[in-house]
């Protein structure tokens, strides 16, 4: 008897139980909304583990993070139309997350909300995951030049809202952003 699904289910449960909060936080950086983040993590876990493919516990979180990202990007159009269809979606009011407790960081959250999903994904991959531009390009299936453009526009927009960013960050971008 093939027990792979069962073993995968055990891995899934372990990832959900032990890394669910971290995955939710990661998703929140992209969505800016707690409920969206929770849904995104659920969707990503389902997508990751629905197939019988064997996934080791050590690499499972990485898989799920990748699926979180791709799901976020793939649903861009739907999010773009969110304003028009939001009343159709089965959920309550928006859950903006812990802005009130992060206080000093609510300015950054507000600024992130002004970015397009692609720009936001690039910013998270660049500054949170600490990926290089080629790595981001590979992760998102984009040309490196496109990633640079997204990052450039994103940083410009963030600076217009937040003031100058830390020097190392803008320097990285000015230096083509392809080295950590």
């Amino acid at each position, binding site marked *: 008897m093939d027990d792979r699904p069962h073993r995968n*289910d055990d891995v*899934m*449960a372990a990832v*959900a*139980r032990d890394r669910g*909060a*971290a995955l*939710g*936080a*990661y998703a*929140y*950086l992209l969505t800016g909304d*707690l409920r969206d*983040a*929770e849904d995104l*993590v*659920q969707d990503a*876990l*389902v997508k990751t*583990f*629905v197939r019988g493919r064997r996934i080791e516990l050590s690499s499972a979180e990485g898989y799920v993070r990748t699926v979180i990202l791709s799901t976020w990007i793939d649903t*861009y*159009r739907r999010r*773009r*139309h969110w*304003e*028009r*269809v*939001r*009343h*159709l*979606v*089965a959920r309550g009011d928006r859950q903006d*997350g*812990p802005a009130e*407790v*992060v206080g*000093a*960081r609510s*300015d*950054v959250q507000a600024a992130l909300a002004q970015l*397009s999903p*692609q720009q936001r994904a690039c*910013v*998270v991959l660049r*500054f*949170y995951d*600490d990926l290089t531009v080629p790595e981001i390009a590979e992760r*998102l*299936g*984009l040309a490196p030049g*496109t990633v640079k453009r997204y990052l450039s526009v994103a940083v410009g927009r*963030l600076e217009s809202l*937040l*003031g*100058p*960013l*830390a*020097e190392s*960050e803008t320097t990285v971008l000015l230096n083509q952003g392809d080295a950590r």
Partner: protein
Amino acid sequence: MSTDVRNALDEIAAQAQGAVRAVDLDRLRSRVRRRRTQGAVVRSVGGLAVVGVVAASLTLLGDGPVPAPAEVPVATATPTPSTTPSAGPTTALPGWVPGGAPCGSVFALEPVDHPELEVQGSVMIGTLDRQTAMFGPDPAGSGVYLNVFTTSEVPGQPAGGDGTSDLTTVLVDDEGTVAFWSDPARLTPRVESADGQGSSVSNLYDAVDCRTGRPLVGTYRVFAHEANGPETVELAPVTFGPNGTRPPNPFLDVLPVCGQPVPDVVRDFTVALDPAVVLDDVDDAGLHLPVTVTSADPGRLRGRVPQSLHAVLVDADGIVVTEAFDRLVGRHDSGAAFDVRTGGSFPAEVFTWFRPCGPTPTGTVGSGAYDLYVYDVFLADDGSGVPTPRTAAGGPFPLTVRER
């Protein structure tokens, strides 16, 4: 002082980690099980994979051929009795509790056009299939789906206000009295499909008169009011009954096709822009324009003005590069009607999101120069009593898109 985005993201993530709810393992396992089961079924029948929620959406949005409307009701600027009187008994069903205000009150239309937002959509009559959780159009159905929404005045721009929507939809009978309104207390509870793949849409109600509890019968004018604007508009009227209102046919098979030239057809109507409109700095999200539609038909044509005419962008090679039909928005008639002879005109609008052709994840049309073509097909009655599809087209209108 500079902002350290890295540290900020770390702090935000750390705080979110403490705020996010634990993954619901039971629900997760259940979803995975259902997906695996469905996958096995799908494979066994040859790979037909349409999950309920998607099918529901497509049905609701009028994708695919649907019968033509049975009639072309004509609206006027102020509430007046409709040509088809509502025939519902006026006595309430035993035990029925009449709805709260504005149920039963005389509705006074005060059109308001907020400069930053737009109320769109329509009311659909149909039936909820509790097995599949799908709501299918049926003018004799027992439910109404309020597919009415608030969006920004211009695609991609902020909608103003506080970003929330407080939308009320009312159906007004032939005496100008509110017979139905979107009372949150009477929303039909959402149901989940038996296969667990989707749930019914929100904004569903029983099609009953809020005063009596009896089924809605006849024709009602429809108004929508967005309090967080404010904006008040009249939407297309609805007629309940076997020959009542069905969703407008989107005529997908005759719209411009991605990757091909705009079709060259006989124009029953020509569409013109206001000469003052300049399109040299258009947002890459889309546009919203007033247009004038002029009849080129030798006879008299009557019908209902579409809420928005379709439009596409065409590149320098003459190829269509954006989708003509937006499945997420669907097709809706407006509260206005036209009745024109040769050379006669009526106002209309183009409200379109630029949806690039193809499954591109970036989802935006590139900046640069394009030609805008307005191209639409809608029903008009030439007096024969049988509305037939007529083509309205305009363009090319040179346009320059800038990336946001």
